[in-house]
């Protein structure tokens, strides 16, 4: 089996990538600005909802129900989709899915495909597989286009080019679209992209989409977007292929009532997405005449098997946890080494692929809880992070120094006598490092603390000692 998540297996450790990224002042500025704008918009449209709490709860319940009966709903989807004229393919892993999709494109002798924003296709490295087969993929989502033309990687699951500002985007477009001049006004940049994409929409015969939701009882697929590029892709080409992670299933059309309220508000701070496309199978003489759905596992059933962490699959990819995360806002998405960044990426990536490649990710969080607070389906991300850290420790994969420190702490905290002895030992050991009650430099790994912060020395009298003395003096 070849289950992988983009190039995450070869990515550097989070803390190594972050070290470099936090020094990139332009990136920090761009990410801080963009996440700030989205958070403010989100707060306004969430606070105006009297039933936000109930909507979150409903979303959570629907997803929990689906995950308990996923086998049933997947088969129901296959049956309904097939009955409506679609073809359903099952892919166990990334390579299988790529093989199916490349095969379908080749069956139509197509040399080009247009794509609607799909993070799942980045997860399976679909573009690499297509290019290897001599097929050119064109991203049609504006942000994806910026990333593709800039030979860059997405840094956010909803706003993949969030780390770029418009001056940088202007430069990319000028270089890659062969334009002689272009301003950095948003409307001019959008117009340039429109001209670049329009002829591809009209010419290319095969489109590839992802899915926000797949409706089991009708076999329908739903994609929400803001630019109309999705509507073009699902209506103009002759052949449409939708790559759908098996966790995208919802039981009925009515369940969209919940998610189409929570998703746009959480994702972009909009009350409703400008384009909500829902299609079912094939309609003669209208839209694509061939429709394929590729249902992808790629590690998802493994996640489902872990009771403590299966909530991870409830994610509707709104990205609110990224914008809320104080860690993500300092590093941007590239530090996570995966197409899935931020808090959700920190729990999803290590589970989808084997832990050893991404075991630094569960530690890429201060466990502040801001992600859980904004999650529209109430995924308890901090708890899952702790669970995954537990797995790293169980495997004995933690750093040696940390394991020793934890053992020493456990020993010292076992009894008041031991703690007392440890304190006395500490008072002696700290002498060479202490000046005026302050420690400004510690040796070894401990200098990670003192590099930028002082540490108060262990006081000569502890609270416990003061308490005992006080009791003696007052005769209590």
């Amino acid at each position, binding site marked *: 089996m070849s289950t992988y998540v983009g190039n995450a297996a070869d990515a550097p450790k*989070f*803390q190594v990538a*972050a*070290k470099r990224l*936090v020094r990139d002042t332009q990136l*920090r500025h761009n990410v801080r600005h963009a996440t700030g704008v989205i958070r403010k918009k989100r707060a306004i449209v969430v606070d105006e909802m009297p039933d936000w709490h109930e909507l979150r709860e409903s979303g959570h319940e629907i997803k929990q129900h689906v995950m308990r009966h996923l086998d049933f709903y997947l088969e129901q989807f296959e049956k309904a989709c097939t009955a409506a004229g679609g073809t359903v393919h099952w892919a166990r892993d990334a390579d299988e899915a790529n093989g199916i999709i490349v095969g379908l494109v080749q069956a139509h002798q197509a040399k080009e495909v247009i794509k609607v924003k799909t993070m799942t296709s980045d997860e399976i490295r679909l573009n690499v597989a297509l290019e290897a087969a001599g097929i050119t993929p064109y991203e049609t989502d504006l942000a994806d286009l910026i990333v593709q033309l800039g030979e860059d990687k997405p840094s956010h699951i909803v706003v993949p080019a969030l780390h770029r500002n418009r001056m940088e985007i202007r430069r990319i477009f000028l270089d890659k679209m062969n334009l002689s001049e272009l301003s950095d006004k948003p409307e001019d940049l959008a117009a340039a992209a429109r001209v670049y994409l329009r002829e591809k929409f009209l010419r290319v015969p095969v489109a590839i989409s992802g899915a926000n939701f797949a409706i089991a009882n009708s076999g329908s697929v739903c994609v929400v977007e803001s630019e109309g590029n999705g509507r073009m892709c699902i209506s103009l080409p002759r052949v449409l292929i939708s790559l759908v992670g098996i966790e995208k299933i919802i039981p009925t059309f009515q369940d969209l009532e919940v998610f189409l309220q929570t998703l746009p508000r959480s994702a972009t701070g909009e009350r409703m997405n400008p384009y909500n496309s829902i299609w079912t199978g094939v309609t003669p003489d209208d839209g694509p005449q061939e429709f394929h759905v590729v249902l992808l596992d790629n590690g998802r059933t493994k996640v489902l098997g872990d009771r403590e962490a299966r909530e991870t699959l409830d994610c509707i990819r709104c990205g609110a946890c990224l914008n809320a995360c*104080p*860690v993500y806002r*300092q*590093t941007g998405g590239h530090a996570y080494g995966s197409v899935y960044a931020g808090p959700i990426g920190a729990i999803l990536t290590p589970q989808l692929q084997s832990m050893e490649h991404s075991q630094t990710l569960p*530690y*890429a*969080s*201060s*466990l*502040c*809880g*801001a992600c*859980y*607070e904004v999650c529209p389906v109430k995924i308890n991300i901090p708890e899952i992070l702790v669970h995954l850290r537990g797995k790293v420790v169980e495997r004995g994969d933690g750093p040696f120094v*940390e394991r020793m420190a934890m053992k020493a702490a*456990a020993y010292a*905290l*076992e009894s008041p006598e031991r703690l007392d002895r440890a304190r006395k030992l500490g008072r002696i050991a700290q002498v060479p490092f202490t000046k005026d009650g*302050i420690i*400004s430099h510690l040796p070894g*790994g*401990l200098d*990670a*603390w003192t*590099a*930028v*912060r*002082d*540490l*108060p020395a262990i006081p000569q009298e502890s609270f416990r000692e003061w308490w005992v003395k006080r009791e003696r003096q007052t005769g209590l």
Partner: protein
Amino acid sequence: MMQRFLEVYRGAEVICIPSSSCVAMIRDHYPKMAAASGDVALKRAVKNMLPRVYEFTELLVDKLGVTDVGAFFPHTVALHPSCHSLRSLHLGDRPARLLASVRGLTLVDLPAAQECCGFGGTFAVKNADVSEAMLSDKVRCFLNSGAEICTAVDNSCLMHIGGALSRQRAGVRVLHLAEILASRDSKGTV
């Protein structure tokens, strides 16, 4: 350690903890750890103990019904609502109400108050660069607030924030909320 904690505090009428992250550990994780152990007696012991566990400001405001403790502290103070106090314990305005009743004290708003300071336990060392970046944001907000003292109900955050203030010779400092409430006119100030 959980078993030892249960044993030590078995007879205590009230367990007062001046650290919201410690309370969160007991409230959020002890029940799960006990359940995972499958030990019925342990589960019962945790269940019996939980109602007696109070975070420091919960004890004062909820159990004792006190917001004015007669403190005197003539300084400008900003309150950092630590993550666990905010999102796990939901302490709400309890710390602020206690501060509001302190004579001489001016409480100022801390910009972006609800942001994590970047401590996060071992996170501060394991991801030192990101932790420092978060800390630098918090310190900037605190300095912009114009306050002389940064207070909180968690000493761990304060050790982190205070460590940076000390290193930068910022001329302002941190104090735990309890230290402010303990200060009196007669005794002078902390």
